[in-house]
C-alpha cells in the first residue's frame, strides 16, 4: 500500500475534508428562502444538545488511540532501521532498545491520561425541565474531550519524532558508538514533548467535574 500521507495526497485529503465540512454545514441549513448561508443558531442548538459523555468518551479514545498510534509509528520507524543496522552491528540492539522504550513511554502517557480521564466520569442526570445537561456537566464533557485530544495529538507527534530520532540514533550508533549518548539526549528532548501534552491534559482535565448540582 503506497503511503497515504505524501506530498501528492495531502491536497487531495484537504479537499475531501473541506468538502465533508461543507456538506455537513449545508445539511444543517434550514430549507427556506434562497439565501445561501449557514444557520448558525441551528448549528449551535445542535452542538449544545450533544451528550457530554459522548465528548468524554471521544476524548478518552483520542488520548489512548492517538498515543498508541504515535508510539506504534515511532517503534516502527526505529525498529525497521534498528533491525537493518543490527544485521552488521549486532551490539547496537540492546542499547537502542531505549529508543523503542521512549516510543513505548508515549503510549503509556496516553493510557495514563485515558485512565485519569475515565475516572472523572460519573453519572449526572439531565435537568428534568429542559431535558438539557447542566452547563458544568457540559463543560466537563468538553474539557475531557479537549484534554484527551491534546494528549493524543501531542503524543502522536511525539511518537513520530522519537521514532525518527531513534532510527537515526540506531544508524549513528552503528557507525560510531560515541554518538549514541549525544543522540540520546536529542531523543530525550523529543520525548519530553509528549510530556508537555500530558501535563496540559492533566491540568485541563482537573477542571472537569461531573457532579450533581
Amino acid at each position, binding site marked *: 500500500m503506497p*503511503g497515504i*500521507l*505524501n*506530498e501528492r495526497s495531502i491536497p487531495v485529503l484537504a479537499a475531501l475534508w473541506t468538502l465533508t465540512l461543507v456538506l455537513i454545514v449545508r445539511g444543517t441549513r434550514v430549507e427556506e428562502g434562497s439565501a445561501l448561508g449557514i444557520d448558525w443558531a441551528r448549528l449551535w442548538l445542535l452542538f449544545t444538545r450533544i451528550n457530554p459523555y459522548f465528548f468524554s468518551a471521544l476524548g478518552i479514545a483520542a488520548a489512548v488511540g492517538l498515543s498508541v498510534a504515535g508510539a506504534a509509528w515511532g517503534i*516502527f*520507524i526505529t*525498529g*525497521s*532501521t*534498528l*533491525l*537493518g*543496522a*543490527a*544485521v*552488521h*552491528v549486532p551490539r547496537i540492539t540492546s542499547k537502542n532498545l531505549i529508543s523503542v522504550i521512549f516510543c513505548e513511554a508515549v503510549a503509556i502517557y496516553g493510557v495514563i491520561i485515558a485512565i485519569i480521564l475515565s475516572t472523572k466520569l460519573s453519572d449526572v442526570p439531565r435537568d428534568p425541565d429542559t431535558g438539557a445537561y447542566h452547563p458544568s456537566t457540559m463543560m466537563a464533557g468538553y474539557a475531557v474531550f479537549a484534554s484527551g485530544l491534546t494528549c493524543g495529538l501531542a503524543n502522536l507527534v511525539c511518537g513520530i519524532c522519537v*521514532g*525518527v530520532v531513534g*532510527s*537515526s540514533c*540506531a*544508524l*549513528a550508533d*552503528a*557507525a*560510531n558508538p560515541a*554518538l549514541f549518548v549525544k543522540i540520546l539526549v536529542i531523543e530525550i528532548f523529543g520525548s519530553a514533548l509528549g510530556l508537555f501534552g500530558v501535563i496540559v491534559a492533566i491540568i485541563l482535565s482537573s477542571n472537569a467535574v461531573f457532579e450533581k448540582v
Partner: protein
Amino acid sequence: MFNRKHGFSEAFVRGCHSKRLSKRDYEELGRCDSLEDVKTYLESISDYSDYLRNVQPPVKPEDIVACCKRRHVKEFNTCQHQASPPLSTFLEYLTYGHMIDNLMLALNGMLHGRSSEEILDKCSPIGLFDSLPSVVISGNVQELYRLVLVDTPLAKYLSGAVSAADLDELNVELIRNVLYKEYLQDFMKFCSTLDLRTNELMKNLLDLEADRHAIRITVNSFGTELSKSVRTTLYTNFGTMHPDGFVRLATCETVDEVKQVLVTYPGFHEVAAKDDAHDVDRGLRILELESCQRVLAEQFNLAAFYAFSKFQENELSNLMWLTECIAQRQKSSLGEGLICIDTHL
C-alpha cells in the same frame, strides 16, 4: 512513511557501508608486503573472512577482488530481495549500468564466436538478467537484437538509440556509450517521479554523473577516430554543464581546452586546476564520492542507495589497485589510485 518500507534496507545498506574499509584500513593494507598479508588483514578486520576463507595460497589479486565483488553482490542482492517499490525499481535502475556492460560483452563475444559459458562467466553478476543466457546463445546479431528488444529492460534504450543494422556495424564501445546516455536520461526521468528529497539529491548526483560521462568521453576520444559530431550525440540532455558547456566540450581537442571549459564551472574549478590529465578523471571521481558522502548524511531517501552502490564500486577499484600494487611491487604508486573518502563520521 519512508521507513515503513525502506527503513530496513536503508539501515542494512548503511550497516554494509559502515563495514567499508576505512582510510586507516587502507593505510594498514598499504603496509602489507604480500598478498597473504593482505588476506590475513582483511580476514581479521572486516566481513571478508567468510569470502576469503576458501582462497588458497598463492593468493592472486584477482582472488581478493573477486571476494570483494562476491560480497558486494550479496549485499546488493539482499537489499534487492528486501525491497518493495519504488526502491526495487530504483535498485533495478542501478543494475542497468552493469546490464549494458553485460549486453555489450555478449554482443562482442558472439561476434567472436565465444562459447556461452565463457561469456556468462565474465558477466557482472549484478547486471544479470533472465534472458541473458538466451541472448548469449542467439546465433546472429538480428536474433540478439530481437531478443534484447523483447525481454530485457534495456529494450527502451536500444530501440531508441540503435537499429538492428547498426548493431552489426557500429563500434561496440559507441553502442555502449549511447546506451549509457539513454540510461542516464531515463534514470533521471524516473527519479523525478520519486519523492521530493530523493529527486533533489538524485538530480545533483545524476547531473554530476552526466558531466563526468561527457568529460570522460571528450578526454578519451582525443587521438581516436571518433568524430566531433558523433561525440556530441553521446552527451546527455541534462547535467550542470548542459547545454552550453557540452557545446564547448564538443569542440575541444586537447585536455587543456577541456580544462578551460571546466574552470568556468564552480563545481569543477578545483578539478581543472590540476596539472596532470589523469587527475581530471581522479578529481571527478573524488567529487562524485564526496557528493555521495553528503547524500549519505541524510536519512529517509533513496539516493543513499545510489551512493552506496558508488561506494561499492570505489571499494572494489581501490582493492584492485591495492592488491595489484602489492603484487607488482609498485607500492610507491599506491596513493595514485586509491580514493578513500573517510566514510566514518
